[in-house]
């Protein structure tokens, strides 16, 4: 029989070390979207207010802060409610994502124990869930903008900042999620750190109000720059400038790379520790 008619033997699957099976980007994205959707659903589907809760929570916080810093200790900031809301939304996402990431591996044993599931999706899902929650309040923000300063074209540039913040949050998330499995004090530590950072980030005040000699403390925090940038795009206030933005971009990308590295190094040992 001529060689070309010979039946080819069936392809033998190649053997590779167990566990090292990264998903293709499309499959990874599909998994992130599915897990995000299912987490949102499970946190909202049994409540009466349902999807209204994230919005209600943010508006309640906004109202309290506006009352305190707009009326009791008047900070005398123009368009204070909307100024505050921009900062608050960015901060809520950041702190929600980081604190959810710390426990994302610890509390989701059933997902870590799924043999095929790459656990690196978990901190990403932890970052996506509060983003969606925050975005639910977006119509309120747009309305507030329209009624106060009017809509700026800068609104369209916001997604670029969102991507930058996602990189920061994902990188930090990977880092703290991985470390928390081995050092169970970390979630508590992060809780305290986020509480302190809320006051050390210009969420409800303006960076320019901080005395010059302390300003560097605020500037160490990438969220300071990001919130200033959001405000400058949406409200037309003075922005952080290209240099500081570039530094934040570099920091975010380093966190992303570093966090991912740390996480993938630690991941094979998760199941033994849960």
């Amino acid at each position, binding site marked *: 029989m001529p060689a070309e008619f010979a039946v080819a033997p069936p392809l*033998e*699957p190649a*053997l590779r070390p*167990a566990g090292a099976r990264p998903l293709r980007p499309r499959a990874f994205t599909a998994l992130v979207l599915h897990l995000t959707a*299912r987490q949102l659903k499970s946190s909202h589907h049994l409540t009466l207010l349902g999807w209204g809760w994230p919005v209600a929570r943010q508006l309640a916080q906004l109202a309290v802060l506006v009352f305190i810093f707009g009326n009791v200790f008047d900070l005398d900031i123009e368009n204070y409610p909307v100024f505050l809301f921009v900062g608050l939304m960015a901060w809520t996402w950041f702190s929600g994502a980081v604190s959810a990431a710390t426990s994302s591996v610890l509390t989701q044993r059933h997902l870590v124990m799924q*043999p095929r599931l790459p656990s690196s999706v978990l901190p990403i899902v932890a970052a996506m869930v509060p983003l969606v929650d925050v975005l639910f309040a977006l119509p309120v923000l747009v309305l507030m903008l329209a009624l106060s300063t009017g809509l700026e074209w800068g609104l369209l540039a916001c997604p670029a900042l969102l991507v930058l913040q996602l990189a920061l949050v994902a990188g930090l998330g990977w880092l703290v999620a991985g470390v928390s499995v*081995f050092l169970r004090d970390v979630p508590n530590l992060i809780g305290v750190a986020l509480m302190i950072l809320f006051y050390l980030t210009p969420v409800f005040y303006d960076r320019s109000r901080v005395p010059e000699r302390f300003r560097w403390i605020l500037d160490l925090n990438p969220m300071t720059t990001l919130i200033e940038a959001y405000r400058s795009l949406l409200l037309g206030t003075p922005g952080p400038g290209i240099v500081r933005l570039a530094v934040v971009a570099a920091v975010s990308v380093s966190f992303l790379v570093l966090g991912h590295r740390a996480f993938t190094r630690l991941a094979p040992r998760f199941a033994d*520790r849960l």
Partner: protein
Amino acid sequence: MAERIRFEEVWKAYPRWAARTLRETIDRRVPGLLGGGEQRWVLRDVSFSVSRGEFTGVIGLNGAGKSTLLRLAAGLSSPSRGRVLLPEETAAILNLGDLFDLALTGRENALTTALAAGVLARRARALMPEIIAFAELEGFEDAPLRTYSDGMRLRLAFGVLAQLAPDALLLDEVMAVGDVRFREKCLDYVRQRCADGAGVLFASHSLDEVARECSRVVWLEAGAVRAIGEAEAVVAEYRDAMHSETRARTPAPNGPSGEFELRRNRFGSQEATIEHVELRDGLGRPVSEMTSGGPLEVSFVVRTAPDRPVVAPIVGLTISRALDGIGCYDTNTVNDGLAVQQIAGERRFTLRFERLDLIPGEYFIDVGAYEREWRYAYDYHWHVHPLRVVGSSSDGGVFRPPHCWEVGEPAASSTARS
């Protein structure tokens, strides 16, 4: 031959102390670091491979490393030394309790598992009806998982697995929870995958099943491979080892005491002893004779020294025929789903037969108390307690179920002739 699963000189150790907080770290790690750190070796130098089409069983006592072996193969944990190699398309069902989110529905959980295996979203959704159909969960797919029984969870996990067409399949002791029919369906699927060239690694406590289904068996003992080879041979060797373990642990007799004599009709380590064995009739009166089809109670006390309890013992009973030693009936607390936590001091066990339809004749009731893993017997009474069954029947066989005959009307003669 093409390999599907390969363990290459695999060692696995767990740190004896897992430091999780600063306090623990200081208390335990620091001396550990200074003294080299304590390690517990769970697998020691394990090497074997599973070729295409091989259904390989893993047997061994609890703690022998079966589950660790499968966890390493599934990539849930990585070896301390050595390598574990598998094909990309590997599927595993290791622990049903860990697998699912109890708040979400069966469908959502199935979707998660499929997506985690790298199936794209659209295809995963399209597969859903087939998954539900294989799992026979129609009507339950949108109920939250916490309402599922263990059997239903297994069916769901298997339903997903059946759509993935894996080249290697890892199953850890999970099929025990399914009903017999679904179990057979799972096994059918596994056999079919084997026939299509997959390799299977299957850990089980059921020696009968391993001997029947598997082509090869790996016997793990204290983390090392004790034997590997053709299934029936290795299982037989394993069983022998268990029996000789009991014999070895039976203390030397110091003369017959009453009807018992150690190493003749009484075996076991005597850490727990069986005493006051009594056969009773339906009214609770002691008997040694019963009517075929009548009620019977077997009652006895398992006793340990109060300060030396035995944990999770298994208690069993066998009825055998005196004439030829044929085993007529065999049961134990594990088979009946009864978990005995521990025995410290005395505990009475009573087994009630509402009716016992043995053919008239002479029988022995053998009772035993065993170590939690069947490693050896604590105490076993062999052919000590006789039972005579009387009755008017001269039927053959070993049991006489309640029955009656019905004879049809004679057929019409015209039909008979044609």
